[in-house]
């Protein structure tokens, strides 16, 4: 963190001015702090990905195969046929510029090639040259350029400065979705073995061990056992999670990040406490899996095929265990994959039942084909039916604001459920300004596999718009806690807040639920899950 520019340096970049040379004449400068390290060849080999090799983005020679241009050309052509989105988006942009200042990376870096329109033009210029008559005839005047090594490096640099958050696509009059452009761009780069390691290694880990962090089954169980002890310390109640258990009613899948690092761990404890509560009171029957131990899917940031390979574990494990349906934890891109891709890729899930809450009897009609329910939907339904005994005052020390994660917001529309839960588990909730929440929410700046350590400057720049809005509610209302429903958020917001708004902490939704949840047989709580003393312990509120 100490190598980072000062806030005022970031602020000075907010005065957006274009470059002095035309963008096609401005060669890419792969700058330290802005890019992620190249994929480890070992990881690529585990996935049988092509052209695994040692290479370094800042070196001149990228050790490309001889026919790399041909590979890209053919890959491009194939994707134009397979994805109407790609073909239409290559053709119809009018460059009106409405998307430009919607991108957090453009806002924060001021780099014109981070305007969504130019990010797409990086590909479009080559598309015109290779696939359109006018582009072939007019060349540069017609906005076309041939594929060169410099163009390839530019693709690589900027395809990994987009977090596929889709904010630009909300404002585009034709719905052009830069996530789609970036997904295609990254697929093409992967044809040449040009992934980043922060994506490739989690993907290969996930493939072999079931989760991004490479936690092996016994270790996974150990980690949850630690949480059992921690929970007992705070509440006096010993919860008993079960693993890989055949015949359970429901399979629970959540991102492995929450098993591994604070503050996600508290959210994970929250799930465990909720499940225990429901089991004690209503006989709720749920199992965790060490095989399908990852909700997230970094394959989504690699290629459609890799996404499918990783996602397959969810249905396969549900089938093997013979559960009725699947409950999914708090994660961002995980839910875009589940909502918009999973059933299509790996369905139909005809071996599962249409999900019904065993406690309230609510049929989750909206998930009747996928058979996977979001835990915010599940918990909101429980609260609505009065099935949870909650003591909101235990969250009185928190002044909460809520960050809509990009994918649940713009790839699903999960907006009200988490807010309903928050309002029912804590007394102090403040929204950020309306142009920065819900479908207009700003990315954390580290999504789509960009949450590495070496690109911290990029992350601080990309997270600036979000942090700025948090700062606003911090100053206005004294907000001290940023709630979210995404494991990447929970991993990346702490450093972002530390840099921009150090007084604000980060929490998951179910950490707050668990703090408020009155467990059967619990001791009087003196601290929250983090061991911090509760204020006004007897339930008196200051409002």
């Amino acid at each position, binding site marked *: 963190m100490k190598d980072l520019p000062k806030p005022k340096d970031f602020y000075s970049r907010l005065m957006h001015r274009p470059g002095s040379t035309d963008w096609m004449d401005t060669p890419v400068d792969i700058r330290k702090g802005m890019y992620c390290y190249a994929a480890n060849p070992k990881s690529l080999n585990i996935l049988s990905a092509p052209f695994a090799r040692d290479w370094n983005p800042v070196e001149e020679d990228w050790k490309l195969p001889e026919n790399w241009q041909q590979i890209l050309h053919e890959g491009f052509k194939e994707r134009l046929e397979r994805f109407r989105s790609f073909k239409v988006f290559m053709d119809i942009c009018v*460059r009106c510029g409405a998307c430009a200042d919607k991108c957090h990376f453009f806002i924060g870096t001021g780099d014109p090639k981070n305007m969504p329109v130019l990010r797409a033009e990086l590909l479009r210029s080559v598309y015109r040259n290779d696939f359109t008559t*006018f582009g072939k005839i007019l060349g540069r005047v017609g906005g076309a350029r041939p594929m060169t090594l410099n163009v390839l490096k530019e693709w690589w640099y900027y395809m990994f400065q987009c977090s596929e958050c889709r904010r630009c696509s909300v404002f585009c009059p034709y719905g052009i979705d830069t996530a789609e452009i970036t997904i295609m761009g990254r697929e093409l780069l992967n044809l040449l073995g040009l992934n980043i390691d922060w994506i490739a290694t989690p993907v290969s880990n996930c493939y072999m061990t079931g989760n991004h962090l490479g936690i092996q089954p016994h270790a996974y169980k150990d980690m949850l056992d630690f949480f059992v002890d921690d929970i007992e310390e705070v509440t006096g109640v010993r919860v008993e999670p079960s693993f890989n258990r055949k015949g359970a009613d429901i399979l629970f899948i959540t991102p492995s990040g929450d098993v591994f690092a604070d503050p996600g761990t508290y959210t994970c404890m929250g799930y465990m406490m909720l499940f225990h509560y429901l089991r004690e009171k209503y006989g709720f029957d749920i199992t965790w899996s060490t095989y399908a131990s990852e909700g997230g899917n970094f394959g989504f940031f690699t290629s459609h095929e890799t996404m499918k390979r990783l996602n397959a574990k969810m249905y396969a494990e549900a089938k093997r265990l013979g559960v009725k349906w699947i409950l999914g934890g708090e994660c961002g891109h995980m839910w875009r994959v589940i909502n918009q891709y999973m059933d299509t890729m790996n369905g139909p899930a005809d071996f599962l039942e249409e999900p019904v809450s065993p406690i309230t009897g609510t049929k989750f009609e909206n998930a009747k084909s996928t058979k996977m329910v979001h835990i915010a939907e599940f918990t909101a339904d429980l609260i609505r039916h009065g099935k949870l005994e909650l003591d909101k005052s235990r969250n009185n020390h928190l002044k909460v604001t809520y960050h809509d994660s990009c994918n649940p917001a713009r790839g699903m529309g999960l907006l009200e459920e988490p807010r309903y839960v928050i309002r029912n588990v804590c007394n102090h909730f403040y929204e950020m300004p309306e142009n920065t929440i819900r*479908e207009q929410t700003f990315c954390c700046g580290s999504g789509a596999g960009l949450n590495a350590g070496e690109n911290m400057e990029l992350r601080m720049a990309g997270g600036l718009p979000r942090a700025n809005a948090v700062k606003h509610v911090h100053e206005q209302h004294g907000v001290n806690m940023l709630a979210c429903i995404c494991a990447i958020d929970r991993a990346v917001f702490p450093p972002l807040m530390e840099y921009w708004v150090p007084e604000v902490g980060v929490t998951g939704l179910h950490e707050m639920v668990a703090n408020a949840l009155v467990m059967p047989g619990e001791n009087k709580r003196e601290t929250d899950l983090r061991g911090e003393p509760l204020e006004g312990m007897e339930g008196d509120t200051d409002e």
Partner: protein
Amino acid sequence: MNVKYMYSFLAVIVLFLIAYVGTEAVGLQWLFGVLIPYVALAVFLVGFIRRVMGWARSAVPFRIPTTCGQQRTLPWIRPNRIDNPSTTGGVIARMFLEIVAFRSLFRNTRMKAKADGRITYQWEIFLWVGALAFHYAFAVVLARHLRFFLEPVPAPIKLLETVDAFFQFGLPVVYLSGVVLLIAVAYLALRRIFIPMVRYISLANDFFPLFLIFGIAFTGILMRYFSKVDILSIKALTMGLVSFSFPDTEVLKAIDGLFYGHLFFVSVLLAYFPFSKLMHMGGIFLSPTRNLPNDTRMHRHVNPWNYPVDVHTYAEYEDDFREKMVEAGLPVDKPLEPAEAEKE
């Protein structure tokens, strides 16, 4: 000077001169008045259809709407039926508003940063107003021009003209649409030239159609209000074009070169259309982030090219970790081999 708009500007001037000199000095009225318009129309129709068919041929493997509101979920949470549609009706409403009212562009905001790093996002409506004015004015102008191709002129067209001439000033009475079109297109061009970031992203392909349409509107206004071209001969020509019965060369020669410039501009626009970004007119209907419902958890969407992939199966996983799993008390499908069990 920016070559991108200079090239486009020059191209439009040259196009006009070609038609003007070609008819006034060389006498190619038949070429510019009959042949080129036919060819241009044919290129437009065939090109447009081919382009749309080309898009339609590409698969829609996944349902990827951009959701801009609350999903349909628990019965007591009100869904946003238009911005996050879960039904065909919702999609139709969303598409309708997108196409007739540019709903997404209406949301446009402008980011502003203060020196202390405070960032604000304000509603920015000018681009939306400019775009809407441009498209609707153009549509009205086009519809009014149907009077040149229909005899007798149908009542709806006459009504449109009456409304368009609502303010009743000037002689001949001024049509609002023409003026609005000219202003809107000038605004769209000027914002491309003067807003630095927009200039930076603009290509020659962006300036050319704007200048061309400006040229069309400008020559049209010149003819109607200033140079007073021979309107009867023009109608004879246009009616001839639709009925395939062409007027005499004398009639064609009676028409001012300005008209041929106007007609040539229109012909170039038609022929250019299918190969350009102007195809957004067709493309918007096929945009997968807008024309699909967000219902993939309710109804399975089928990918026509879905192919099987390599996966790491549970059996393989258990083989990798069986010993450790047993030791940790995790259930396994296949018990440890006796030899392995003994090792413990």
